[in-house]
């Protein structure tokens, strides 16, 4: 009976909680980049763009890279340092599990001209602009 009277009065004891929760979500959304895995930096060269990503503990075989015209996707899985029943954890800060991240590139790149290197847990992907997109120098003829 009490429940139905709440319905009629329109008072929802959970509305405040939902409002707070959505505010919290918004707060976290604002800082989303720091929670995305892996963390990336972007670098621009004369006719190329480089993406570096921190992926400690992984090697090239653990990662799938795919490049479309203007996006780069880094996907893979980072396994837990240990598992099993005989293990007790004191601290677990290192991110683990499957991940996939798509990064928008500042310009179109040639998917056939991609170089990737992996050194000490840092992945470096270098992509080049398609030949056709390169700025061309136009000669001015003097008559």
């Amino acid at each position: 009976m009490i429940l139905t009277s709440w319905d009629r009065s329109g008072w929802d004891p959970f509305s405040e909680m939902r409002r707070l929760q959505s505010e919290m979500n918004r707060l976290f959304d604002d800082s989303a980049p720091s929670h995305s895995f892996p963390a990336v930096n972007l670098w621009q060269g004369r006719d190329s763009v480089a993406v570096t990503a921190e992926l400690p503990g992984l090697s090239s075989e653990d990662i799938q890279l795919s490049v479309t015209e203007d996006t780069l996707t880094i996907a893979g899985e980072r396994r837990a340092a240990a598992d099993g029943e005989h293990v007790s954890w004191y601290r677990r800060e290192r991110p683990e599990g499957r991940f996939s991240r798509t990064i928008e590139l500042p310009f179109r790149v040639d998917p056939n001209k991609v170089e990737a290197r992996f050194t000490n847990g840092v992945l470096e992907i270098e992509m080049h602009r398609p030949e056709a997109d390169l700025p061309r120098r136009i000669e001015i003829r003097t008559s």
Partner: protein
Amino acid sequence: MAQELSRTQSRGLTNGEGAQPARSGRVYRPDTDIYEDSDHIVLVIDMPGVASGDVDVTLERRVLTIRGRVHASRPDTYRSIYTEYGEGDFERAFTLSEDIDEGKIEASHKDGVLTLRLPRAERARTRKIEVKAA
């Protein structure tokens, strides 16, 4: 057990802000997993960008200090256009409990991850006592 001693800046979207200035840049607190199995305490420490030769582990009066040096090698032709993580050295310290056999700590480093295996001293391990049937 290994207990954290001091804290340096956590990583993330920092642009280096708030991190402690050091040698030539910043010092970050590396993400660390600590777990215990049957006879070891294991520390797994993320140090992306640090080569094996640039990791330094010291133990002094039960304080285990881990340092890693990053050599940022960005060609001059590249300029930064977007930054989510700062490049800098890593440092973190832990205090070890008395039951760790300090002489037998093993360290290994691979793909930017440092793993330290700290064996528990023989006497500290739980001993199984067999009950004999009378």
